[in-house]
């Protein structure tokens, strides 16, 4: 055993370790240092917690923090619920199953910028297809992306449109892995479709649900491109996310502040996603 272990030499992981270490781990570690500095890439000056204070005092920065949480929770919730509905539906006896699955899944493979542009056109307040359609049934559609209280939610909906396909296929894989006997047993006991869904499908596809929750939540926290393509964080700062603030501060040359935004995003992911991951995985083991 000892001998065979030495065959699996660590030298095999050196190439990956160098690339990943230098270009991912090292910058991550450095970000903790540079977030406490005023910095122009050549010289830095230690300013303590000033960047972080600014982040939480300045309303235009603070809003990004709130928006990020709203966005992550909203997109994650919708992806889980809608994905589960699609998946249950797609696991029943359908003639058009593979067509439907492909239809729901394809948007996940399209570039985010392309999706953003397309939906900017569809959500145009007067000419956009969405409001034109609503107009047909007598509803005066809102300015989806121009209304400060709606812009973030509109973008979140587009995110769900684009991303629900991944949730759906993961749920389908989860549901398919449930042995059929459980459903037969439920039928014999006189359970209806709802019982089957609530007492068999949900608990037994827990691993899949956990995966979707974590993937969608972290994806939501880190989102940048869709918001940037659709609203640029506007109107005003109403749809700014932490990731878009990092970009804006970077463009403005406030590298220390931008890096502080990065550290805050890291902390947010670590504070929410890591415990969530541990918690959900522990439950899995119990199953």
């Amino acid at each position, binding site marked *: 055993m000892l001998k065979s*272990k030495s065959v699996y030499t660590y*030298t095999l*992981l050196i190439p990956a370790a160098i690339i990943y270490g230098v270009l991912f781990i090292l910058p991550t570690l*450095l970000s903790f240092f540079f977030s406490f500095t005023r910095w122009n890439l050549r010289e830095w000056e230690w300013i303590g917690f000033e960047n972080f204070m600014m982040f939480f005092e300045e309303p235009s920065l603070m809003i990004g923090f709130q928006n990020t949480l709203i966005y992550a929770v909203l997109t994650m919730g919708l992806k889980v619920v809608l994905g589960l509905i699609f998946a249950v539906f797609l696991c029943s006896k359908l003639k058009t199953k593979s067509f439907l699955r492909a239809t729901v899944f394809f948007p996940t493979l399209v*570039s985010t910028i392309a999706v953003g*542009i397309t939906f900017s056109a569809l959500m145009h307040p007067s000419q956009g297809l969405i409001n034109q359609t609503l107009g047909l049934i007598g509803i005066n559609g809102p300015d989806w992306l121009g209304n400060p209280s709606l812009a973030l939610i509109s973008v979140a909906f587009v995110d769900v449109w684009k991303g629900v396909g991944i949730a759906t296929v993961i749920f389908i894989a989860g549901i398919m892995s449930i042995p059929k006997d459980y459903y037969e047993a439920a039928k014999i006991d006189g359970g209806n479709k709802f019982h089957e869904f609530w007492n068999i499908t949900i608990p037994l596809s827990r691993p899949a649900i956990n995966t979707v929750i974590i993937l969608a939540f972290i994806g939501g926290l880190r989102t940048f491109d869709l918001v940037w393509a659709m609203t640029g964080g506007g109107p005003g700062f109403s749809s700014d996310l932490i990731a878009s603030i990092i970009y804006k501060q970077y463009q403005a040359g406030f590298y220390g502040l931008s*890096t502080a935004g*990065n550290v805050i995003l890291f902390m947010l992911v670590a504070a929410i996603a890591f415990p969530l991951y541990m918690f959900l995985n522990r439950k899995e083991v119990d199953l």
Partner: protein
Amino acid sequence: MKPQTIQSNSNVILKKKKDKKKQTNILVEAVVVLFSAVIFLIPFYFIIINSFKTSEEASRMSISWPTEFHIIQNITEVLNARNGMLLLAYFNSTVITITSIVILVLVCSMTGFVLQRRSDKKTNGIAFVFISGLMVPTAIVPTIWVLDKLHLFKTLPGIILIMVAITIPFAIVLYRGFIATIPREIDESAIIDGCGGWMLYFKIIFPLLKPIHATVIIISAVNIFNDFVHPLYFFPGAENATLQLTLYNFMSMYETSWNLLFANVLLITIPPFILFLFFNNRIVAGMTAGSVKG
């Protein structure tokens, strides 16, 4: 009444009930298919139909049938814009995608192999560091600083290595999962035959990984090809166009010419669509890998 008739009667009722259920099922299915077609397919129809139109017609943003088919002119105009920027972008994006994938396949399969075969504490620690990269957001400005120190900022090798670095966690997870299904007996017999670590890996293991190579290649291809954020930060500059950056820049340039914008969107969507047509099942399998077992 004879018992037989009762039975046949109830059979008829049961059958009627079943037929009715079947009918409602088909009805429900039709409604759902129609609904999801509207939600998921109309945007694509909208892209295609508008990329065919003239500028004035496309500015109405409708899904009506074009009166004039302008697709060839639109595509030529998009391709010629800014001295053929889009062609350069196609070239750059292709080079970035292919080179990163070659590196990823080599480097991550080796790593996944070692991380799966060894199970001591140290190895688990290393695996955790690699896999946590799935969650940790890229530290933007420090990465630029590191790239700059290495003289790789704004260069093709720089953006390629960045793409490799951010895709490593995902690829390692896939390889590690797959290698777990390859029996250790294969290693052992190779060791008895005198294979060392590298030889065992390249001669025996690497060829066995074909299915997972395919999955890693296809999914990374889509992700790297579609990535906007990393080229935006680490590959800026006029000559450093990638497809997603070009599309983003065209957005402000063609504010009023939706036909050209959508012609560009169409051109950018074709490569992932082709991959999707041929490898739909493999893509789905890769994305759901490990999610069920946890």
